[in-house]
C-alpha cells in the first residue's frame, strides 16, 4: 500500500452546499440553534398536511413536536440536505424514503412485474404437434393479440369483463432474438433491438448467447403486481399468453396442446427475476429477497450506457441495490420503520462513495497499470490474496483519512453503518473491477471491515458483529454451505440475510467484476436485454438520476388509479 495523490474531491461541492458558510475541515461548530424541525421545509410541509388530515378524520397523526422524545424534536443540529450522487440535485432525506418517491416505487414495480418467456417451446408445440405454420407474420399477429390481451383484455370468449386501458397503459410485451434475419421481420414496435441499444461488442456477445431463440419480455400492469405480488407475474402472463396463442393460431380452446403452451409459459420457458424464498421468508418468486446479485447487476443498465466507466456503472448498481434491498426489502418487507433509508442513502448521496471508488481506480492505474477506462478481460489483475489485501488496505485507509480530514463529511455519515458500508463498498469495487473476480471483491469488502473496526474501534450496528467478522472465511470458498460464487449469492444468502447496508453493495461488487472486464452481461443475457428496453417506465441505465427525479416530484409513475376515483 502506498498513498497516491488525487486532487479531485468529488464530495466537496456537496459538503459546501450542505454546510454553507462553514469550513468543511473544522472540528468545531455550533448546535442547538437551528429551530428544530422548522428548519426543514419538508418537515413543515408534513406538519401542515397532518393538521389538515387530523381535522378531516378526527384522529391525531404526525405530531413530532409532542411525540419525539417527549417534546424534544429533531433538528437540534442541522437537518442536512443530500445531493443524489452525480445528479447535482439536492433533496431532503425524506424525499428518498420510497413512500415519498414515486421513482423508487416504480423501480421495484418494473422488476416485480417482469418475466421473460421463451417462445421456442410454444413454437415447437404449434409446429410439430399441431402442424401449424409459424412465420414472422404469424408471430407479429400473435404479438398484436398479446399486447391486446396482456393488460387484461379478452380474446376468445364473447362475454367477458376487461380492464380499462388507461389503468394498465404500462403493460406490454416485446420480443428479442439473436437471429438478425428474424429480428428484421418483427414489427419494430414489438422488438427490443439489441443492435441499437448496445455497443457493437456487447450486442454481438448478447446475440451469440440468445442464438436463434426468441424470447418475450413481458411486463404485466403495475397495478396488478401491486395488488397481488411478484408471484402473480408469471401466472397473469401465462394465462394471457395461452389465450393469445389460441386466438392467433386458431386453436381449440380446450385441446390438450394448450396445456403444453401453459406449461411452457408458467414453468418450462419462464425466467423469473427472482427465485422463490423458503417458508420462513414467506415470499414467492419475483420478490426482492430472491434476486441473485448477478441478475440484479444485469437489470441495471449503466454498463450499457457507460461501458468505459465500470466505476460509474457499479455505483449505479449500489444506488439501485441499496434502495431496493435496504429500503424496500429489509426495511419494509422484512422489518419496518424508517431507519433503513438513512443507512442506504449514504451510499448514493453526496458523491462520497464515488470519490472513494475513483480513488481505487486511480490506485489500480498508478500501482498496477490497470486502466479502468478500457475494460478488457486480458487486462485484469490476477486475484491473489496479496493483491486483494493491498487494494483493500489502501482504499480503506484513504477513506478513513478522508472522513478524518473533513469532519463535515464524518458528520454527513454520522452513523457507523453508513461509513462501514461505504468504505467496504469502495474496497470491494476496487478489487472486483481490477481483478474481474466477484469473490475477490467480496474478500476485499471483509478486509475493509476488519481494518475499519480495529482502526476506529467501532464498526456498524450489532449485525456487523456477525456478518462482517466472519465474512473473510466465506468469501472465497465454494464449498456447499460455506460459500458460493458472487453472481449466485443474493439477499437470502445465509450470511447476508439480515443486514442493512450490505446487499446493494454486494450486488455492485458482483457487477463490477464484469464491468471491469467489459462483459456484455454478468449472469443472464436475457435479463440484460430485457431491461434495456426504452419503453419501460423506469430508466434502468440511470437509477440515481431517476431517484432524484422522484425526489423532486418530477417522475411520472405507472399504476395510478386517478381514472377510477373521485378527483382530489
Amino acid at each position, binding site marked *: 500500500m502506498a498513498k497516491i495523490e488525487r486532487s479531485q474531491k468529488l464530495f466537496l461541492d456537496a459538503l459546501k452546499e450542505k454546510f454553507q458558510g462553514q469550513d468543511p475541515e473544522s472540528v468545531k461548530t455550533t448546535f442547538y440553534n437551528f429551530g428544530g424541525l422548522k428548519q426543514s421545509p419538508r418537515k413543515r410541509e408534513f406538519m401542515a398536511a397532518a393538521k389538515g388530515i387530523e381535522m378531516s378524520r378526527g384522529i391525531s397523526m404526525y405530531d413530532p413536536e409532542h411525540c419525539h422524545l417527549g417534546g424534544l424534536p429533531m433538528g437540534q443540529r442541522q437537518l442536512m440536505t443530500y445531493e443524489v450522487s452525480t445528479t447535482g440535485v439536492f433533496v431532503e432525506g425524506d424525499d428518498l424514503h420510497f413512500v415519498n418517491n414515486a421513482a423508487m416505487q416504480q423501480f421495484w414495480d418494473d422488476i416485480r412485474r417482469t418475466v421473460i418467456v421463451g417462445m421456442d417451446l410454444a413454437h415447437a408445440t404449434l409446429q410439430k404437434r399441431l402442424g401449424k405454420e409459424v412465420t414472422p407474420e404469424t408471430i407479429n399477429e400473435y404479438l398484436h393479440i398479446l399486447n391486446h390481451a396482456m393488460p387484461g383484455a379478452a380474446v376468445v370468449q364473447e362475454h367477458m369483463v376487461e380492464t380499462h386501458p388507461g389503468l394498465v397503459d404500462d403493460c406490454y410485451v416485446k420480443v428479442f432474438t439473436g437471429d438478425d434475419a428474424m429480428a428484421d421481420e418483427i414489427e419494430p414496435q414489438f422488438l427490443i433491438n439489441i443492435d441499437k441499444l448496445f455497443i457493437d461488442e456487447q450486442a454481438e456477445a448478447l446475440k451469440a448467447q440468445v442464438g436463434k431463440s426468441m424470447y418475450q419480455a413481458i411486463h404485466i400492469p403495475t397495478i396488478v403486481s401491486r395488488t397481488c405480488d411478484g408471484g402473480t407475474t408469471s401466472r397473469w402472463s401465462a394465462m394471457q399468453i395461452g389465450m393469445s396463442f389460441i386466438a392467433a393460431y386458431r386453436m381449440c380452446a380446450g385441446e390438450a396442446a394448450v396445456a403444453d403452451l401453459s406449461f411452457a409459459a408458467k414453468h418450462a420457458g419462464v425466467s423469473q427475476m427472482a427465485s422463490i424464498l423458503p417458508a420462513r421468508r414467506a415470499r414467492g418468486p419475483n420478490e426482492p429477497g430472491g434476486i441473485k446479485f448477478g441478475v440484479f447487476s444485469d437489470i441495471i443498465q449503466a454498463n450499457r450506457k457507460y461501458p468505459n466507466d465500470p466505476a460509474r456503472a457499479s455505483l449505479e448498481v449500489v444506488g439501485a441495490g441499496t434502495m431496493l434491498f435496504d429500503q424496500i426489502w429489509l426495511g419494509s418487507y422484512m422489518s419496518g420503520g424508517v431507519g433503513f433509508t438513512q443507512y442506504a442513502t449514504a451510499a448514493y448521496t453526496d458523491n462520497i462513495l464515488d470519490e472513494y471508488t475513483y480513488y481505487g481506480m486511480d490506485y489500480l492505474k498508478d500501482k498496477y497499470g490497470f486502466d479502468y477506462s478500457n475494460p478488457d478481460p486480458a487486462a485484469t489483475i490476477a486475484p491473489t490474496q496479496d493483491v486483494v489485501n493491498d487494494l483493500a488496505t489502501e482504499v480503506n*485507509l484513504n477513506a478513513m*483519512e478522508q472522513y478524518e480530514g473533513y469532519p463535515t463529511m464524518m458528520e454527513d455519515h454520522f452513523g*457507523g453503518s453508513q461509513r462501514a458500508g461505504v468504505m467496504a463498498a469502495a474496497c470491494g469495487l476496487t478489487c472486483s473491477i481490477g481483478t474481474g473476480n466477484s469473490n475477490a471483491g467480496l474478500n476485499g469488502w471483509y478486509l475493509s471491515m*476488519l481494518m475499519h473496526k480495529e*482502526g476506529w474501534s*467501532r464498526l456498524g450496528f450489532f449485525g456487523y458483529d456477525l456478518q462482517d467478522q466472519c465474512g*473473510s*472465511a466465506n468469501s*472465497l470458498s465454494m464449498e456447499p454451505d460455506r460459500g458460493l460464487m458472487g453472481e449466485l449469492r443474493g439477499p437470502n444468502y445465509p450470511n447476508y440475510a439480515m443486514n442493512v447496508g450490505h446487499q446493494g453493495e454486494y450486488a455492485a461488487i458482483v457487477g463490477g467484476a464484469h464491468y471491469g472486464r467489459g462483459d456484455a452481461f454478468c449472469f443472464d443475457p436475457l435479463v440484460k436485454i430485457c431491461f434495456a428496453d426504452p419503453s419501460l417506465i423506469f430508466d434502468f441505465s440511470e437509477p440515481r438520476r431517476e431517484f432524484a427525479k422522484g425526489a423532486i416530484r418530477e417522475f411520472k409513475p405507472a399504476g395510478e388509479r386517478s381514472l377510477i376515483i373521485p378527483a382530489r
Partner: protein
Amino acid sequence: MAYKPQYGPGTSHVAENRRRQMNPDIELDKVRNVTDEDVVLILGHRAPGSAYPTAHPPLAEQQEPDCPIRKIVEATPGAKAGDRVRYVQFVDSMYNGPSQPYQRTYTECYRFRGIDPGTLSGRQIVECRERDLEGYSKWLIETEMFDPALTSIRGATVHGHSLRLAEDGLMFDMLQRCIVGDEGVVTYVKDQIGEPLDRAVSLGKPLDDAWVKEHSTIFHSLIGLSYRDDVEYIEYIQRIHSLRTKYGFMPIEE
C-alpha cells in the same frame, strides 16, 4: 505454558493505550471522584437510598441445583442478591475520546465479571446485575476511561460520537444531558435516559487536549496518529484476514 494475553498488536502509543486499558494487571489512573449517589443518579435506574429491586430471591435462599459450573464460578454480589439486570451506555467521541466502543468491550471483558456488553458504532452498552453495574460504572467514570467532554452516558440519542464538537468542546447531545458551568466544570442535569435530575451531578473539568491526545485509543490522521503509521497493526489485520480466508476452505493438515 500458561496463556499470556497480548491485548492486541501495534507499536504506536494508541496501540499501547489500548493494551493498557485492557490489561487488568495495570491499575488505571483515577482522575476524578464521584460519589455512589452521583452514579445512581446518572444511571437513573433507582432512587438513591432505595432497595435494589430483585428479579429472584437471593441465591442463598433458594434451592440451587447440583451444578458443577456453579461450584467453579462464584456468583457476583449482584447475582447472589438476585438483583435485576440493568445497563450503562457510553458514547465516545471520535475526536480522541479516551476509550472507544470495542475498546470498552474488550476492557470490560478483561476486568469485569458477569457482564453482557454490546458494541455499536456510536455507543457501547454493558448490562449486568444492578449493584455490580453501579460499581463498574463508578470505575468507568472515575478512571482515565472517561472524559467529561468527550465521553457521555446516554441511554438514547447517541449521535454525537462522529459529529464535530460544540464550541464549548462538548460532544453533541440533542438532549443536552450535561452542560459546561462556571469555571468549565461539566455538570449532568439529566440522567442517562434524559430525565431531569433533582440535583445536578458534577463530573469535573474536561481533560486538556494534550492529555486526551496522549491517552487516545483511536487512530485519527487529523487530530492524532494516522492509522497507516502503525505498520505492525495494519499487517496484523491483513494476516488475520488472510488466515480466515484460507480457513474458509477447511484445509486439512497432512
